[in-house]
């Protein structure tokens, strides 16, 4: 039987309340969102917080709002809500692609975007999605809010820029016209972590050439996006030859680790193949997209 070590539990009533609770209880306190990463770690005693600050009642952080050319998503928005949002599916199909393969529907009823990003598991899907969409993280602390790029948000595996007395409150996705995006993941079984996954976003100029492109990979040891492949694609018409070349560059940029999910060669092969597939789909979707 897996039972967490003893802790004191407190429920935050507002974001400011959560921040002052974090300040009061110090570094041995942890915030729990959906709890589907933290609670298993606590059950295995890999995490032993003295105080657990529950932010599940912060409905003020559960929203999907369009604000001019930005889609604002509250940190406590559940995976299920992201998957069910028609606006997200239309503007950012990569999010729906990824959500469909994150854990299972029951887990998605609890897990949140903020929890996933803050857990920062190297095989986590939404971190790649947010990098590909050039999302920004809004972090609130005692001194107010700061807005970070995903690059600055992610410090490494299981590490983010969120300080102990801060809370990730919102993720902002810039809306681009004539753009499309896609995500594809290979997993050993349904709902598992990725062996490898890839995501891409493509924006087309009025002449049909690639105006902007980002490519991200999950679980192959790449911190940012695959800039070499992005540079190759920019300014050209989308096409199979380019996608093949981009896939090759993505595989070269990958630095996967051999583990129970597969050897290095296999993971590199997946990085190549999945990069081609998501570029094809993202470019096709960009071609169909009407407005931002």
């Amino acid at each position: 039987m897996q039972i967490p070590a003893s802790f004191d539990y407190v429920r935050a009533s507002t974001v400011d309340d959560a921040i002052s609770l974090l300040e009061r209880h110090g570094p041995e306190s942890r915030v729990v969102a959906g709890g589907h990463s933290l609670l298993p770690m606590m059950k295995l005693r890999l995490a032993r917080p003295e105080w657990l600050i529950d932010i599940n009642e912060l409905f003020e952080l559960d929203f999907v709002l369009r604000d001019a050319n930005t889609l604002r998503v509250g940190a406590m928005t559940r995976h299920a809500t992201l998957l069910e949002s028609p606006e997200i599916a239309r503007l950012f199909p990569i999010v729906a692609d990824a959500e469909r393969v994150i854990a299972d529907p029951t887990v998605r009823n609890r897990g949140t975007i903020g929890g996933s990003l803050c857990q920062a598991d190297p095989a986590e899907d939404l971190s790649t999605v947010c990098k590909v969409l050039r999302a920004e993280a809004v972090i609130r602390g005692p001194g107010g809010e700061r807005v970070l790029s995903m690059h600055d948000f992610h410090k490494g595996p299981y590490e983010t820029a969120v300080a102990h007395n801060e809370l990730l409150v919102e993720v902002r996705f810039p809306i681009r016209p004539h753009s499309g995006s896609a995500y594809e993941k290979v997993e050993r079984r349904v709902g598992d972590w990725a062996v490898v996954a890839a995501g891409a976003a493509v924006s087309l100029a009025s002449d049909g050439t690639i105006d902007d492109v980002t490519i991200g990979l999950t679980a192959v040891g790449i911190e940012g996006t695959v800039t070499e492949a992005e540079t190759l694609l920019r300014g050209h018409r989308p096409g199979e030859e380019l996608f093949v070349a981009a896939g090759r560059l993505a595989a070269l940029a990958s630095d996967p680790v051999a583990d129970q999910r597969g050897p290095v060669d296999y993971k590199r092969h997946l990085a190549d193949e999945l990069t081609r597939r998501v570029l094809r789909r993202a470019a096709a979707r960009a071609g169909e997209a009407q407005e931002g």
Partner: protein
Amino acid sequence: MQISMTINGTDITEEIEPRVLLVHFIRDQLRLTGTHWGCDTSNCGTCVVLMDGRPVKSCTVLAAMADGHSITTVEGLATGATLDPVQQGFMEEHGLQCGFCTPGMMLTARALLDHNPHPDDGEIREAISGQMCRCTGYATIVRSVQWAAAHPAGQDRMDEMEENAGEEVTA
């Protein structure tokens, strides 16, 4: 700490340790043992209960997190002696063999039908994809949920039960 919640329509208040998981609270403290406890790692889904109408894995929710919420367990599916159409469907279409996964399967099916009264087989399989059954190969579970979708009031079964009045029916 003290927590209050609605379980199967009844308001309860109990004293708990904060580290108690919802599944153990339901089984050991409330003695509602219809909710099963399986893998303990949020994989198998036999511990699924409905929290405010949505299926959740109760081995990965603290009882404290359910404070103020509404929980439905398998014991809350039937209304008096009348089974939920989902329960009837599992009887009609042999949706179980050993029965270990059944409480979670039926609750997920109930939530699915509340949300989508006419799911196709793919939608049913997707809905239960976080839950494992090692007996049925899922085929009869899908048929059971389809039976419930086709009989939203459980009418046929109720008619049959009236015809067989006097015979004991067990779930």
